């Protein structure tokens, strides 16, 4: 009997398969544009049918095994307990599938079968999700990829603008240098994981600004893989070979970069970097010595924004197809212990977890308090 019902349901679904279920493409503007700001002017807008909460939400992570991902998982769990959305979630589950695409696709399909309302995911590959997108649309499930987004405009996605981040890195460093009267000089660029689009885009942004500035900048690029250990080594090597730099443009592994400056006795210079707690501690400590840095990061808190976006979509709000999360920026003169960095938390903790326009405030300690309990 059950099978018969399933079959007839499948039949009904097929008969209207030409008009895919799922979101309707509508015209903007969307809800709460300060938080869910559209990526570009021509970004489409989606609207799902409004439905009654509370909702069942799942997070399907891929690879797990670096600090960022672990913090992301903890953030997701902390945010699900947040009073602002706790009542809107009836069931919440997090799984990590590893790097196997078949397993990740399977997990998403499984949650669709289990009747979840929304699935938030970091895709293991920018391609290959056509089937689950079709299934999600057919079952009216809101699928929200974030961080590593998909090469498609058929789902709602959440990310930070990496080119803009690179631009802000360079703009800050050049601004500090020009206030010191320098409009040309030697800069060290510490790049991320080769072949990754995030590394490519951040570097592109940095070089756009350098080119536009018109100054004579000699840029030495080294590859730090966003890893503290690697970054420390390559920066030390670069200093040994090239001598002194006027500024450092790092985009990750920033703890290692600062450590290399300290170890080699390199003077403290203006720099850019990710949002590691250790880097911000160093900025607060050495700013007076000349370490006038800017810290912007890809926040593990993106998962919280994605969950919020999913809930907003389920409530029937108009949402941009590609959401650009405001960049969480802090410069050396804006740092405050206990607010945007924590002197009592580990160096590899990612600090940016507050997004005021989205009403998302997850404090560092509340994330760290998330233990290995059941999700």
């Amino acid at each position, binding site marked *: 009997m*059950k*099978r018969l019902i*399933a*079959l007839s349901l*499948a*039949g009904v679904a*097929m008969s209207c398969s030409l008009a895919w279920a799922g979101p309707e493409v509508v015209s903007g503007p969307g809800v709460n544009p300060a938080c869910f700001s559209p990526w570009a002017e021509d970004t489409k807008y989606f609207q799902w049918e409004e439905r009654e909460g509370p909702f069942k939400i*799942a997070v399907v*992570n891929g690879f*797990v095994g670096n600090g960022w991902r*672990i913090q992301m*998982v903890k953030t997701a769990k902390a945010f699900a307990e947040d009073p602002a959305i706790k009542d809107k979630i009836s069931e919440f*589950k*997090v*799984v*990590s*599938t*590893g*790097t*196997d*695409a*078949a*397993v990740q*696709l*399977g*997990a998403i*399909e*499984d*949650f669709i*079968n*289990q*009747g979840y309302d929304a699935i938030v995911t970091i895709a*293991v*590959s*920018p*391609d*290959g*999700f*056509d*089937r689950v997108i*079709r299934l999600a649309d057919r079952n009216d499930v809101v699928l929200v990829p974030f961080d590593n987004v998909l*090469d498609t405009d058929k789902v709602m996605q959440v990310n930070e603008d990496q080119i803009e981040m690179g631009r802000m890195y360079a703009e800050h460093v050049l601004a500090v240098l020009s206030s010191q009267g320098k409009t040309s000089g030697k800069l060290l660029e510490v790049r991320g994981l080769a072949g990754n689009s995030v590394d490519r885009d951040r570097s592109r942004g940095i070089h756009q600004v350098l080119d536009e500035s018109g100054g004579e900048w000699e840029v030495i690029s080294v590859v730090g893989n966003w890893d503290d250990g690697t970054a420390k080594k390559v920066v030390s090597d670069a200093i040994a070979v090239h001598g002194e730099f006027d500024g450092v443009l790092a985009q990750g592994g920033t703890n290692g970069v600062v450590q290399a400056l300290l170890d080699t006795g390199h003077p403290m210079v203006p720099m850019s970097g990710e949002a590691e707690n250790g880097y911000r501690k160093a900025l607060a400590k050495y700013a007076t010595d000349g370490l006038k840095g800017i810290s912007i990061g890809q926040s593990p808190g993106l998962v919280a924004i994605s969950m919020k976006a999913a809930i907003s979509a389920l409530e029937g709000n108009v949402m941009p197809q590609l959401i650009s999360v405001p960049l969480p920026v802090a410069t050396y003169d804006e740092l405050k212990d206990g607010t945007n960095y924590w002197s009592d938390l580990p160096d590899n903790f990612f600090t940016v977890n507050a997004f005021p326009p989205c009403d998302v405030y997850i404090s560092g300690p509340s994330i760290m308090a998330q233990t*290995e*309990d*059941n*999700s």
Partner: protein
Amino acid sequence: MNDYKKSLKLAIGQNMGFTVATVGLLLLWLLYNILHPGGFSSAVLIQNTNESVVIVFVAIAQTFPILLGGLDLSVGAVMTLANCVASALMSGSPIQILIGAIITLLTGTAFGFLNGMIVVYGRIQPIIATLATGSIAIGLALFIRPQPGGDVDGDLGWALTNDLYELVYTYGWWDADAAWFSPFAWIPVPLLIIIIVGFGIWLPFKKTVTGRTIYAVGSSESAAFMSGLPIERAKLTAFTMAGFFAACGGLYLAIQTSSGNADMTQAGSYTLNSIAAVVLGGTSLFGGVGGAIGSLVGALLLRMLSFYFRIMSIDPLLQPLIEGVVLLVAVSLGALRTLRTKNRLRLFR
């Protein structure tokens, strides 16, 4: 009747690992469906088989070299290579798609044959030879697809990853709602693919002289040689079959994801998981004991673990740990036979 019972008992006794794995799988699957909110539905079965097809094929591929007493470290890489080849060729008219699929399978088969040649005529240990050729396969895959992408026919992907109903409906072969068809319409296509390709090739192959020789070589190569069995042919065939089945996996992955991805970590994890699946399915790493059907069951068992993670509440950060522990326990169960051996020296042969 008595004879029948006796031979069944003998078959079970001789394939203890396989029997335990199969019974375990059935019990776990039953429990899973009871716990799952949509249990015992076609959708869940489709999802389960879809997630398992690739690892099943790669595990079957790995079975052949392991039966020889060797190991093929290139299966994951060949699977990835086939995936990338398929992603480049599988679009256009039905004929073009078919030719693309055939070329994909041929690529993997040829690669397996190459492995066999190196092992047989180069006289290099399989583990080293395939480690090297695995890198070559990944290199080729990266060359074909430096960035993930490709455009495998979307309808094909949809039809082959669903139940028979969708397959028939998508291509309009006959009226999908016909009364005679409805008893079969719920059967997942991936399940049929596994059964037809897996059983259809393995069962007849096992009975051939070449097939028996693979077992013989795994049990005792010198005895097989003394008996005048075609050892070289068996080794060549075993590696060629491994290449073919790995390519089947890659082809399905391309259909499933409608794209190709030369992902090195994924290739590595498939190779390692395939070995785990083969062992779980009751095949001995020393060779000569086991079979591809066991590996099929082993691969399904392996996947079953991740199914459970999604219906039970287990901390995501603990999942890899639990997976590892369960795997270790399962493999240890298979090793219990060592406690029963009469002479411990037998273990070191």
